[in-house]
């Protein structure tokens, strides 16, 4: 039986996407396997050894720390989620205000321009030591998410067409109505873009911060501890878990973006 590919068929498109993705990942797996053989270093173990380590971790947990795999994942996710909520709560309102007020924009610009280029990871040892090992890593992630979210929000406000604002005022909208009927919906795509960028940076930060402050587990600590012991298959399990969690969180953000855009008519 021969199936003709139909680009208009949703199922066909999905099938094509799955097939290409599977082949792509298979190529990655092959390249990894071959690199591990060619280099012959224990630091790059072959995929079967990493798979065995993953199964062992799933069944017996992390014997060294007494944590299960899920404990480490939850520890990282918890820090990440707290940092994200704080960054969102601070960056979005601040970005909207800066976007609306030229004076505030002028005032905050030098501060932000000085702080923004600093890699959030550079703050890790400082914040961990100056504050504490619970809030230090959270603040590192906060910084990682905060700046892209803020700059995208400000950019979003500035990109609103003045015609839209004028039209809403002409039609009798007050300041509050202009804000939540025009300004906020117009900014949403930019905020969502900032969230997606921030989430990617946030994952890098949480891992680095957990390596600096190994308090209460987490995938960063899991990786650094097993690297210290030369248990490279476990290091790779940690790296793959980070990749999966990163994909999931960014995928969730994209899904939320689509839903919000649809509801606000900004598709």
């Amino acid at each position: 039986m021969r199936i003709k590919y139909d680009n208009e068929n949703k199922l066909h498109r999905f099938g094509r996407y799955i097939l290409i993705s599977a082949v792509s990942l298979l190529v990655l797996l092959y390249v990894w396997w071959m690199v591990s053989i060619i280099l012959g270093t224990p630091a790059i173990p072959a995929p079967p050894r990493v798979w065995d380590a993953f199964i062992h971790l799933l069944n017996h947990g992390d014997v060294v720390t007494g944590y299960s795999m899920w404990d480490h994942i939850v520890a990282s996710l918890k820090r990440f989620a707290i940092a994200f909520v704080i960054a969102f709560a601070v960056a979005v309102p601040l970005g909207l205000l800066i976007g609306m007020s030229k004076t505030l924009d002028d005032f905050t610009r030098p501060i932000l321009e000085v702080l923004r280029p600093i890699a959030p990871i550079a703050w890790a040892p400082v914040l961990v030591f100056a504050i504490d090992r619970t809030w230090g890593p959270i603040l590192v992630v906060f910084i990682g998410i905060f700046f892209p979210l803020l700059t995208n929000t400000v950019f979003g406000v500035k990109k609103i067409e003045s015609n839209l604002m004028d039209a809403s005022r002409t039609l009798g909208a007050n300041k509050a109505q202009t804000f939540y009927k025009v300004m906020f919906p117009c900014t949403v795509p930019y905020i969502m873009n900032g969230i997606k960028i921030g989430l990617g940076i946030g994952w890098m930060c949480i891992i680095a911060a957990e390596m600096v402050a190994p308090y209460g587990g987490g995938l960063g600590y899991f990786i650094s501890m097993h690297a210290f012991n030369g248990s490279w298959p476990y290091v790779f399990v940690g790296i793959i878990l980070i990749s999966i969690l990163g994909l999931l969180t960014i995928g969730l953000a994209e899904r939320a973006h689509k839903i919000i855009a649809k509801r606000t008519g900004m598709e």
Partner: protein
Amino acid sequence: MNNVTVAVVVGFLIFFSLGTAFIVTSDTGEQSNDPVVSVVAMVNSEGSGIFCDRMLDINDPEGWGGLVFMTPGPGTIQHEMLKSLVFSLGLYFALDRPTKNNWTVYWTQVAPGDMSEYYGKRTMNGGIVWEPWYSAILTKYPEGSIGGAYSVARSAEIEPGHPCCMVVVKNSFMEQNEELVIRFLLAYIEAVEWVNKAKDPGDPGHALLLKIAWETALNKGDPSALPTPGDIATIEQALLGINYDYSLDGIKEYVTSLISRFANSGSITKPVNDPAAFAGMLINDGFLNDVTDSMASLREEYRNTSGAGTIRLGVLANDLHQIAVRAAWGYDITGDGKTLFEVYGLNVVQGGDFQTGGGGVMNLFAGNAIDIGVLGLPPTVIRSANGL
């Protein structure tokens, strides 16, 4: 299908066929864990201690449950020692977590040099750490004061005579540079003998030993800083708790026991089928025996020579255990205007940065940055068993 699609499909088929053939014909199974480094001399035994914000009895579980202790991390002898002690008290030992219970002692990893600061913040109850940090904490937070630290036990009370740091040589270097290893050991042994003599406050070398100890362990890189009376008291106290010795007697048996201990704790992840044979390969006492058997003639032969060769050395930061190596490396302890390594014709250079743990020194070996390293026995055993 158009031509491009056919070409892509054929390309993939060739790639997968060749890749599969390559993978199948290559040995991707468990790599051997024959060590790539050898332990050629001991650096010290004992020299660590447990402190806590309350007095505890190492033979009574009363009061231990729910406490949080700092350790230098899994894979260090200090961590394993505390773990064994907690198990012997009938309690569990787990990584610190938000919800605690009274039948578990919790641990959290902190760099030894940072333990004092963290203890001062009172978020942790105590810790186990090597010298001089153990003495430094007891000096900084006197027992009985508010937030004071109590000495629960020295490591010698928990495991008398336990070995700690070792001189480790990369096998490939050792095979091609036997004479350099012998010269290194001759200088190192002379330094150990000098340190043991200079520990006596009446010895003329005592003041220099205190200076070396302070610069090695307590000064954090400030060239203008001077030791305080508290620093001197800390060093005097710390030196008393460390045994400086180069002998490898009994180390093979100890390594054999360590292997099963680390396999059970999950630090060794590759099976070691014959721990005794592995210990025999890791501990190379041949050089040390040769040197000690013919010490006088070898000293006569190699002393005051020059240009023998260069050795790249990897060491730990702020570790008083390694003071003999530092004394032989950077100070004129013989009074003839040269370091001991120079006296034996060696140009010893630092390979890589100072490391905060033995795993870092093993990484320097793995990255071919050093020929000889000074580090703890446990990371040497774990990393060697895991294939480096």
